[in-house]
């Protein structure tokens, strides 16, 4: 049997909401350590890796390792019914073909139980190498959301360049061109609002804005987002899940087309 309980179920709703547009369905790997998930979008241009450690749950029980095929779209619809302060329990009984999602209101007068069918999914896992990135940027996740939205007005691709001065995002298209430059925050009043850039080597990489915007669906998980870049390497976009783990998105860069 697998059973995990969260006092603040909304965290889970935010995780699923952050994933479901990029990946409609995926396999949850449940073990004694916690829940992990790894999946690529249908075009294989992006990959998401989720870790939720068992210590982060109010209570956690996993008798044997399980691979659960979940429709993230259906799960998201069910989780949207959750009240702001509801607790959440997820359970899969042995030999069951469904997953149970139970919500309890804070004042314990309302109990909701949902049962979704598990799916049969092929899951291939990729090994994600530990990368020593040339450049890491931390910024407010709301800031990153805005930058992706603004760049998408100008074009489909965004060029990310890091220099000593800071990081610059550029896009061009039918309307014209635009760029947004962020410099490191000097006066760190609130840590959450700071922009911190660590650069070992300058990078210049092009990415499809559409995917970056989809990654931003996970922004409600954390006030800060971490971007890690190296030449000829997928960008890593990380949102930490407080005291539990993280959601990491990887996006392959756009490359020169040799034939032209």
């Amino acid at each position: 049997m697998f059973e995990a309980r969260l006092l603040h179920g909304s965290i889970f709703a935010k995780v699923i909401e952050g994933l479901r547009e990029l990946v409609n369905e995926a396999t949850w790997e449940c073990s004694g350590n916690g829940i992990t998930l790894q999946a690529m979008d249908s075009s294989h241009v992006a990959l998401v890796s989720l870790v939720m450690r068992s210590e982060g749950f109010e209570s956690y029980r996993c008798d044997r390792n399980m691979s659960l095929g979940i429709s993230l779209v259906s799960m998201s619809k069910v989780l949207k019914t959750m009240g702001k302060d509801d607790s959440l329990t997820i359970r899969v009984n042995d030999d069951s073909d469904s997953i149970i999602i139970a919500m309890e209101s804070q004042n314990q007068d309302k109990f909701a139980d949902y049962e979704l069918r598990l799916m049969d999914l092929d899951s291939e896992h990729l090994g994600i190498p530990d990368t020593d990135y040339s450049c890491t940027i931390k910024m407010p996740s709301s800031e990153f959301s805005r930058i992706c939205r603004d760049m998408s007005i100008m074009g489909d691709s965004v060029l990310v360049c890091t220099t000593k001065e800071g990081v610059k995002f550029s896009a061009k298209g039918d309307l014209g061109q635009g760029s947004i430059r962020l410099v490191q925050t000097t006066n760190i009043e609130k840590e959450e609002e700071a922009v911190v850039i660590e650069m070992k080597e300058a990078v210049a990489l092009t990415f499809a804005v559409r995917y970056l915007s989809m990654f931003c669906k996970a922004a409600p998980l954390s006030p800060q987002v971490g971007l890690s870049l190296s030449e000829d390497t997928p960008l890593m976009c990380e949102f930490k899940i407080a005291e539990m783990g993280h959601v990491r998105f990887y996006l392959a860069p756009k490359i020169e087309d040799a034939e032209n």
Partner: protein
Amino acid sequence: YPRKKSKTKQREETSFILIIYRLTPKLEFLMIKQKQSNLLSGLWSFLEISSSKNHLDQMNEQKRKTYIIEEIQQMPTIDTIPSINNIKLAGQCRHLFSHIDKQYIIYYTHCEQNDVLIPSTSMQWFNEEQVQTSAISTAMKKVFNVALPQIKLKTSNGKKNGTIDNYFRKKNSKV
């Protein structure tokens, strides 16, 4: 009385397909709606020019392209002839209909004067997603999938998206 399905030898045919594409406002492909006289009535397809095998035997590549341009000028569904700078060969494919074995020789060309082709219910510009999801026959889908990579290469500003598979390798055991 119940009738048995007849099985006859399939007739062989060859057609030229010309996929006209434009880049403004986005990468889009010109499709026309089939005349309502045949089995594929109501489906969308690319410009198709029939050619008897005799004709084909007599043409080299240059002559084929000239032939295609002039055939299109005759077509009633096109109000004005696009300026066809250069017709390129994408490839070939074959499709077995219930009684026809059809060979498609597929060309593509960029149309610059996109404002002179008036969208109507019998002729419209489709983007890639619309081509894949609209009502087109299996044959036209094959044709499109032969031409699409070539057209994308030509139009991609030199940049195409890599895939994660190029960077991360499969694992044998899961985490």
